[in-house]
């Protein structure tokens, strides 16, 4: 099965757009497949300067050279992706007007179940939201207020025009186009994403948030996020992801680059709830994401928190390159896989500077027929005197048909560095379940409570409004897993 299975309906759509591509530049969807023409089309659609197009084409040509060398080292099994069988550009027809209320009823139902209308809550809480609907950024709230403070928060397509010097300087500086197969693909075809710049010395007073959504059928989503925290600044950034339920698999290959300069701090939180496929493993998002932070400055700090409950396939390793002396990186992760989901996720902490610190807390929960792998690298360079790493990976198995795996790599070249890694595997004990049920909780309430306890260390690092959602998601993701 190809990643995006063609249906009768989409064949019709192609008919419709076969000519549209050449003549109608206003069309809202490029034809299927990937070629230099498509890339030129995307670039033209965005009215990009020549240097952007060149960058894309360079990436595309490199990607062609890679041929079918998709990374195969992860513990993931999925049918071969047919990259010519997807749309690389899809924009909602009324992009500029699309309101944030425009959410799939199915999704609304989920949020109702969660008891918190996410968007409303974010608005109320004063969270600035940039919504990426398929490929374009449809609305950015609180723009004005942020502008006054000197914060740049806008779709990256806009930043290319308004702040080319920043984009030129930093785009691809953490994740170069040649980094890996999916990052190369993204560099060639990315359509939108968020751009954030926090000026020197500013503690951004509100959380910035992007809300990603894959809506169109057979669309790949390739967003690109770039966050720069200038000297002494601070920002907390939230990312939420959802997608409607479809039988086809859809590809999501994003790249996120963070740059923290001297004394700057970035907190990046993700709640990923892409459609995971149904109980039989049909459909669901293929999530191949490259996220990396460069702690360039002295005393800089980056903290990744992720709650991964969705996607059929998750391939994701938010990393930190600890270049600046005294810089620190933290990675907190909850990954839940149920039914036929597969996740291979973790982090890389590359210690280059002196007195650099990293901390990794990973909680993997596997249920149903799912597989859940923690894969992480801690590398201490020869010059990273007094570097410190602490890693704790805990896996929880629910039922006897799932798998939980831990694959850490620890490479040390400095005698004064200290690394510590611990991993455990366990299950929810019958005693714990009985105890909860004896206090009147249903099986599902009990599982949710116990698993939330297991994930506590990670969930408590989330900003409040996300933490509540994440806690409920934990319970919902595991529904039907024990019984």
């Amino acid at each position, binding site marked *: 099965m190809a990643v995006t299975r063609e249906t009768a309906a989409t064949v019709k759509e192609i008919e419709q757009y076969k000519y549209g591509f050449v003549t109608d530049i206003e069309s809202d969807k490029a034809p299927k497949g990937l070629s230099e023409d498509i890339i030129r089309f995307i670039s033209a659609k965005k009215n990009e300067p020549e240097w952007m197009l060149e960058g894309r084409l360079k990436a595309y040509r490199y990607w062609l050279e890679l041929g079918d060398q998709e990374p195969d080292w992860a513990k993931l099994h999925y049918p071969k992706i047919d990259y010519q069988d997807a749309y690389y550009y899809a924009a909602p027809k009324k992009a500029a007007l699309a309101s944030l209320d425009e959410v799939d009823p199915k999704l609304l139902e989920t949020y109702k179940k969660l008891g918190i209308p996410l968007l409303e809550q974010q608005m109320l809480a004063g969270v600035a939201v940039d919504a990426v609907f398929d490929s374009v950024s449809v609305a950015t709230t609180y723009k004005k207020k942020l502008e006054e403070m000197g914060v740049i928060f806008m779709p990256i397509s806009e930043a290319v025009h308004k702040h080319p010097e920043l984009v030129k300087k930093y785009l691809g500086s953490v994740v170069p186009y040649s980094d890996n197969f999916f990052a190369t693909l993204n560099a060639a075809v990315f359509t939108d994403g968020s751009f954030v710049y926090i000026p020197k010395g500013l503690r951004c007073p509100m959380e910035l948030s992007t809300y990603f959504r894959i809506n169109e059928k057979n669309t790949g989503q390739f967003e690109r996020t770039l966050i720069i925290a200038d000297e002494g600044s601070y920002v907390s950034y939230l990312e939420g992801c959802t997608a409607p339920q479809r039988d086809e698999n859809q590809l999501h290959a994003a790249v996120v680059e963070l740059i923290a300069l001297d004394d700057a701090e970035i907190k990046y939180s993700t709640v990923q709830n892409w459609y995971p496929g149904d109980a039989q493993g049909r459909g669901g998002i293929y999530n191949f994401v490259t996220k990396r932070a460069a702690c360039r400055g002295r005393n800089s700090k980056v903290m990744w928190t992720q709650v991964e409950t969705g996607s059929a396939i998750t391939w994701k390793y938010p990393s930190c390159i600890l270049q600046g002396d005294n810089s620190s990186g933290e990675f907190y992760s909850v990954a839940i896989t149920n039914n036929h989901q597969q996740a291979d996720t973790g982090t890389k902490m590359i210690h280059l500077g002196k007195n650099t610190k990293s901390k990794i807390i990973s909680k993997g929960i596997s249920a149903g027929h799912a597989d859940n792998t923690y894969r992480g690298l801690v590398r201490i360079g020869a010059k990273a005197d007094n570097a410190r790493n602490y890693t704790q990976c805990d*896996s929880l*198995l629910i039922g*006897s048909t799932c*798998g939980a*795996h831990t694959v*850490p790599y*620890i490479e040390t070249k400095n005698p004064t*560095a200290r690394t510590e890694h611990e991993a455990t*595997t366990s299950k929810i004990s019958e005693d714990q379940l009985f105890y909860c049920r004896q206090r009147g909780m249903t099986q599902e309430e009990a599982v949710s409570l116990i698993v939330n306890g297991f994930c506590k260390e990670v969930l408590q690092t989330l900003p409040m409004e996300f933490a509540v959602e994440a806690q409920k998601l934990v319970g919902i993701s595991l529904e039907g897993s024990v019984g």
Partner: protein
Amino acid sequence: MKPAAGLMEHPFGADYARRTPAPADAMLAAFRDQARSVFEPQGLPGPKNEAWRFTPLRALAKVPFIPAAAADDVDVTAVPAPVAVLPGAARLVLVNGVYRADLSDKIEGVEISTASDRSLLGHIATMASVPMAALNASFMGAVLSLKVTKAATTPVHLISVAAAGSQPVAFHPRLLINIAPGAALTLVETHCGLPGQATLANPVTEIRLGEGAQLKRYVQVAEQSDSFHLAATGIALAKDSRFEGFHTGLGGALVRQEIAAVMHGTGAHLELHGAYALDGHSHHDFTTSIDHHVPGCSSNQVFKGVVGGESRGVYQGRIHVARDAQKTDARQLHKALFLERGPQIDCKPELEIYADDVQCAHGAATGEIDADHLFFLAARGIDPATARMLLVEAFLADATERISEETVRAAFTRDIQGWLSRRSLKAAA
């Protein structure tokens, strides 16, 4: 013969095969042919082979090895002096993998034969996943089979001496150990070499433990500083059998001790521990794989290492718990201590779990000698050099004290102490 595109060139080609003595019989010949058909297309594992990413073989591949059996200028008349005499143990001596009755003792209770045990050969060490088993099988010379049918009272001390003449030599011995149900054996192995040209020891050991059988196997590898040792061991454990293993690595240019055990019967228990101490440009690699194939088995691993000079220590440990292998208890720990600036430690402990009612854990740590501990000893009037030595000894003792045979524990500990005192002398000079 030129290797296929992308493979590194190595000395184990057609010419090497031609100079390797013919097998004893047609069965062995067929076994070797089959092995070469596996080895040749894959060659020596390169850096892209995940299991070998930390242990490059480039330097080894450049040494013009000839088969040891083809070297007519090797002359060994005695066991090298530094090899410890284990009280009460019977000696079994191999030179370049070949059994030497003239240097060996008579052993009671153990059936020793140079004929291959066909029920074992090639069944436990798998060529497909273990490249060193494929290399061994391709050029397999001497086979030594040990069979134990009751509890052997005399420990066996197998001494494998590597010796080159005017050219570097390689040898590929195969040891087959069959412990019958209820039987038991204690086996100590010393792998050492004589000064001179480089050697490559490529021993493969296949071990079968019958129901309720017990094997204690203690292996010390102390090759010459320019020599190579690439060993692979496969262990199959039946119901309620018990295996205790300890491995030391004290030097050699490049040493890899790869141990793979499979639990085939409920109630099997495995203890596998090791210690390494490296200096100069030594590279040592412990790679273990414990496969809990059936429910109700347990395994425990503790590996400790100290590294100095420009050395590199590697530990890769994989624990696999099969679907339905409930009530598995599997643990694994690796800790390494840096003695100075220069060395490198690579560690990859791995859990692969497919059953929920299990207790599995691993831990890994690296660091240097704790300054607080040093200060404490200094405050008690102990000079820094002695203090460091005491602390390193204590660090490694956490592994060595798991050797249940007292005489072996004492001998192995003495070896480590010897290494440490030689090293600190060298540092002082």
